[in-house]
């Protein structure tokens, strides 16, 4: 009987539903049953949250469909400009009348809005004084180019976002990246340029390099074209990895080991699987597309989508999803394992799929934004 009462009271307490007498009763029970305390504490320290901010590809897609429906229903909606939206522009659109009517409420709203914004986009940003964040993001299928206040140029690939402080460049040049970007950093030895991603931090002075850090990819890749970069893998902050031009650093996003090791021998490989909490990394050479010697890692900048010979259709599909802004599903598991190679520039998704279909024995069906691959 006591145990059931215990669960009643404990659940009420943790859902904010317990009265003060019920809280006292729970305390009393715990005094007589100290052995239940542990369980109570473990449950008290849990909180449940959905992870929509981390992996919201599906919801993003749903939002686009939602906008389409809104348009059809003739609902006026100042659509977020494709590929490029800055918080600044949103602020300009603020309703002036509201300011006059309820300036107080607006001020409160503004403060809360920015606080939340900061919570959401800048957990990594060390220098993030409030109300000064800019975010540039791209949708699937679109790319954009940003010039930062220091003159550095960032090309942002599809489904990516770059966040930086409005004070960028005053002390330290710092950005957060999710997705893929090509950086051409203006040289300024007194202000190092730092890129934060989920698993690595990259510190540079003046160079050109590519960073690929999609949350749903297996690896984070840093490919150096010229100059020098210093990479710190999170959880291994005492080790610094220096890259030379023509090298790339591959860091496993999860605790997985790195697969797809290219034929040329990696300089250094770390396979201590027992250190499971530390990301595994390897330094490899950049890969060239044999047909025209394009560097595959940065080919997206020139609007080229290249698949290496050792990539499975499943991996290729992920790239195509971002490239074309579509959703690809496999009706057949065997087809997902086919290894493909090829290069596309201006082809449409139909043309690309038709070309891949040649000699690879699969079929596809397009309905709206969704493509199903069958045998």
């Amino acid at each position: 009987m006591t145990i059931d009462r215990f669960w009643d009271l404990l659940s009420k307490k943790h859902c904010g539903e317990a009265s003060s007498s019920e809280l006292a009763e729970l305390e009393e029970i715990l005094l007589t049953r100290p052995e239940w305390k542990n369980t109570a504490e473990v449950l008290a320290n849990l909180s449940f949250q959905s992870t929509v901010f981390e992996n919201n590809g599906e919801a993003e897609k749903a939002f686009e469909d939602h906008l389409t429906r809104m348009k059809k229903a003739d609902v006026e909606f100042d659509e977020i400009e494709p590929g490029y939206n800055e918080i600044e522009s949103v602020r300009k659109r603020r309703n002036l009348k509201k300011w006059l009517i309820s300036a107080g409420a607006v001020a409160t709203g503004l403060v809360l809005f920015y606080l939340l914004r900061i919570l959401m986009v800048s957990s990594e940003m060390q220098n993030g004084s409030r109300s000064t964040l800019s975010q540039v993001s791209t949708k699937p299928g679109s790319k954009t180019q940003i010039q930062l206040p220091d003159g550095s140029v960032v090309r942002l690939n599809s489904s990516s976002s770059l966040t930086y402080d409005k004070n960028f460049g005053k002390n330290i040049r710092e950005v957060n990246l999710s997705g893929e970007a090509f950086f051409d950093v203006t040289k300024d030895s007194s202000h190092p340029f730092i890129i934060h991603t989920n698993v690595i931090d990259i510190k540079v002075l003046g160079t050109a390099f590519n960073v690929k850090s999609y949350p749903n990819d297996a690896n984070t890749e840093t490919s150096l074209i010229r100059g020098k970069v210093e990479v710190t893998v999170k959880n291994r902050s005492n080790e610094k990895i220096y890259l030379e031009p023509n090298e790339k650093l591959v860091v496993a996003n999860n605790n997985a080991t790195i697969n797809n090791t290219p034929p040329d021998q990696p300089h250094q490989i770390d396979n201590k699987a027992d250190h499971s909490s530390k990301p595994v990394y390897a330094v490899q050479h950049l890969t060239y597309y044999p047909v025209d010697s394009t560097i595959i890692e940065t080919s997206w900048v020139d609007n080229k989508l290249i698949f290496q010979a050792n990539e499975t259709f499943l991996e290729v599909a992920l790239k195509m999803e971002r490239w074309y802004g579509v959703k690809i599903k496999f009706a057949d598991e065997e087809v997902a394992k086919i290894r493909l190679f090829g290069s596309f520039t201006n082809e449409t998704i139909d043309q690309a799929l038709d070309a891949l279909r040649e000699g690879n024995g699969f079929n596809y069906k397009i309905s709206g934004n969704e493509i199903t691959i069958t045998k």
Partner: protein
Amino acid sequence: MLQQAVACFDDTQAYKKLFLLFYPSLVHFAVSIIKSKESAEEIVSDVFIKIWQKRQHLEKVENLSFYLFTSVKNRCINQFNDLKNRTGITITDVSIEFKSIYHDPEQKMISAETIKQIQEAIQDLPPRCRLIFKLVKEEGLKYKEVAELLQLSVKTIENQMSLAFKKIGSAINFKVHQLAVFSKN
């Protein structure tokens, strides 16, 4: 907060965030009522269109998540009645996923193993119990609000939450035998 941004600034970005934040849970919830993913997505989209059209009133909404869940429920019931001329909702086959469980990192005693056990315990809860647990713990709804939403009594919500805590608590390794013995009394 986002709510205010949408209401005061006509902020399309905040509106998008709001959509992304609630969309998955609302669709899950709608599917548990009308059993069709397509209709569920349409209903949730309709609710969000209404939200945008009536954004000036958004500031006055006290508990947005309750408001959204209730709107979705009402639309589901309307559609359901149109289709089958039946009233009432039956909740079956709710697949609620708790994608992640956060815990205080200082609290060393919670191991990955324990987290796994908790997750399994949640998955093993009866569907209705799991839905109630999700609405309370993940969406932050009050017992009273969940009761109203699901047309159940507050007492039932209390019992279901108690059951959920019991199952999850018992799944945790510590003192599991002791608890099992006591619960038989």
